[in-house]
């Protein structure tokens, strides 16, 4: 990332990153920061919240309100923050196991509410920090430390899951296709409602190494060769697309947002005109 962005938003004393060589997480982080910088948002209005795992360490490097929560539950804290103070911009970063295994219930309900939170999934198809166990996005047949004979559980398609649950902006990008990722994250961040960007992020250490992609370059080459842009699929048959993973924007619709509905349809309708409390809190 550009030095001025790094200097402006990173907690310098916390560097270097914890992530391994060849990990895609730093690339996604840079993409998020470029988007925020482009909007000119104040650092004081941004909350970035994570769960547990390699991705969970992301907020610690950032000079915002940062919260590193429990495994899978980042969205519950984020919901409380956004609901209590809708003026804050709430970004949640989660891994694949974090978001759709242990946090699956919270993910589907945050999407269902269409609360104005951006969820960015650092999807490396593996539990990296704990040593490479199979996750809900590990492709069938791939080797993981808990799938030594190959994974047999069909993986989640996070894009389809998010759409099915009611998210109103859904996209997929990768840590290789960076300008495209910048664009998707930007659109997700300014979207009003629950937005999801599923970002494929290589994990050479815990995934690639076990799956014939030992080097960093091989991991990124795999992304380059196995991904197709949504725009490039037009006019192509499913056979022509084959097993390639489609990236791009899958859904971008407007629907009433949760905190706005609560205010408009509940508080504004039932609130007593007489001030019921003179307690002076922080807000």
């Amino acid at each position, binding site marked *: 990332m550009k030095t001025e962005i790094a200097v402006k938003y990173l907690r310098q004393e916390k560097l270097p990153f914890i992530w391994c060589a060849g990990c895609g997480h730093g690339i996604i982080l840079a993409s998020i920061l470029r988007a925020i910088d482009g909007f000119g948002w104040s650092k004081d209005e941004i909350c970035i919240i994570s769960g547990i795992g390699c991705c969970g360490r992301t907020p610690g490097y950032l000079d915002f*309100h*940062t*919260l590193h929560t429990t495994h899978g539950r980042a969205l519950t804290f984020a*919901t*409380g*923050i956004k609901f209590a103070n809708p*003026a804050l911009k709430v970004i949640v970063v989660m891994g694949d196991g974090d978001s759709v295994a242990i946090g699956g219930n*919270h993910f589907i309900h945050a999407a269902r509410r269409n609360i104005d939170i951006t969820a960015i999934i650092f999807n490396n198809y593996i539990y990296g920090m704990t040593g490479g166990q199979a996750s809900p996005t590990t492709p069938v047949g791939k080797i993981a430390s808990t799938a030594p004979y190959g994974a047999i559980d069909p993986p989640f398609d996070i894009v389809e899951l998010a759409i099915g649950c009611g998210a109103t902006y859904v996209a997929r990008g990768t840590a290789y296709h960076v300008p495209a990722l910048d664009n998707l994250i930007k659109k997700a961040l300014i979207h009003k409602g629950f937005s999801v960007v599923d970002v494929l992020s290589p994990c050479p250490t815990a995934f690639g190494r076990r799956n014939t992609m030992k080097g960093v370059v091989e991991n990124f080459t795999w992304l380059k060769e196995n991904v197709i842009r949504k725009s490039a699929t037009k006019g192509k048959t499913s056979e022509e697309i084959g097993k390639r993973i489609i990236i791009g924007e899958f859904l971008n619709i407007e629907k009433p947002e949760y905190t706005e509905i609560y205010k408009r349809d509940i508080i504004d309708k039932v609130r007593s005109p007489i001030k019921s409390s003179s307690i002076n*809190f922080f807000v």
Partner: protein
Amino acid sequence: MPLLLSGNEAIVEGALASGCRMFGGYPITPSSDIAEKMSLRLPKMGGKFIQMEDEIASLGACLGSSLTGIRSMTATSGPGFSLMQEHIGFAAMAEIPCVIVDVQRGGPSTGLPTYPSQGDVMQSRWGTHGDHPIIVLVPFSILECYTLTIKAFNYSDKFRTPVIILSDEILAHLREKIELLKEIDIKVRNFPEVPPEEYLPFDSRYLVPPLAPYGKGYRFHITGLVHDETGFPTADPEKVRSLQERLASKIPEEEVRDIDVRYMDDAKICLFSIGSIARSALRAVLQLREKNKKVGFIRPITVWPFPYDEIKRLSRDLDVIYVCEMNMGQIVGEVERAAECDVRFIGKADGTIISPGEILHNVSI
């Protein structure tokens, strides 16, 4: 004007009077009517109610909203309280104020959903993993459901800690006439005295460091990992020890001590009980006193931290303490640790209350 309220309703009144403006909840008997009342009342005061997808999420949402400076509460019962333990630990570690109401029902597991118990006494202290401070308040009347909820919010902000109100199915749906307070003593949490660049969210110079709300210019990090004064993870044994020792000492027992002691001056025998069963114990004491028996009564209201020194002092001239509780023997172990006299147990966990008659039947004088 006095109101005829149930225990659950009194808790709602106490919470609203305390300035609670966020409730995250999930339905569970016998606590659900707290959530129902909050959903009705909060928006009228500009507050927020959200029904979350489970109890883990309920407490997570409360912790999130608390970080923005809003007084937040959730309510549940045994099975949901078990689920909440994960975030009770997070709240203890990250020192986030919140109030959790546990309306106890029979357990373990799904247990006896519509029948009372006092089976969560130890869970309220040690339910989450690791050493952690906690405050647990146990009401025995509808008035106390109200006043202890107010106290719970004040303790929670003052000590930056989760505070648990341990009610039960008896109190939840018992109705008594109470007078609401005209003036409420509200002690909100301390705002940092230093500018943002000097702020340490876990400043070890304080026993309880001030907590800056999100969105007010104080940007800092919070994690459930062991952290140093800045809030960032550390495994440096000295810093880990410093945090653990501060957490262990930040709620002085004598400061939150609240204990109902009656008829102890000349007592040789004492009935010790907490919560709704203390009503039966008190009735038994009164009946024995009518027969000129020298029987006393001890009821801790703040059960955790447990008043060991006070029990030790009070038990010096006693022959025996009978501990009455609606479980198979939980708080009795703590009484045994403290008491300098014999300790006997009167308890059961069959879903029925322990009546004064049952207590009298088991007390030998």
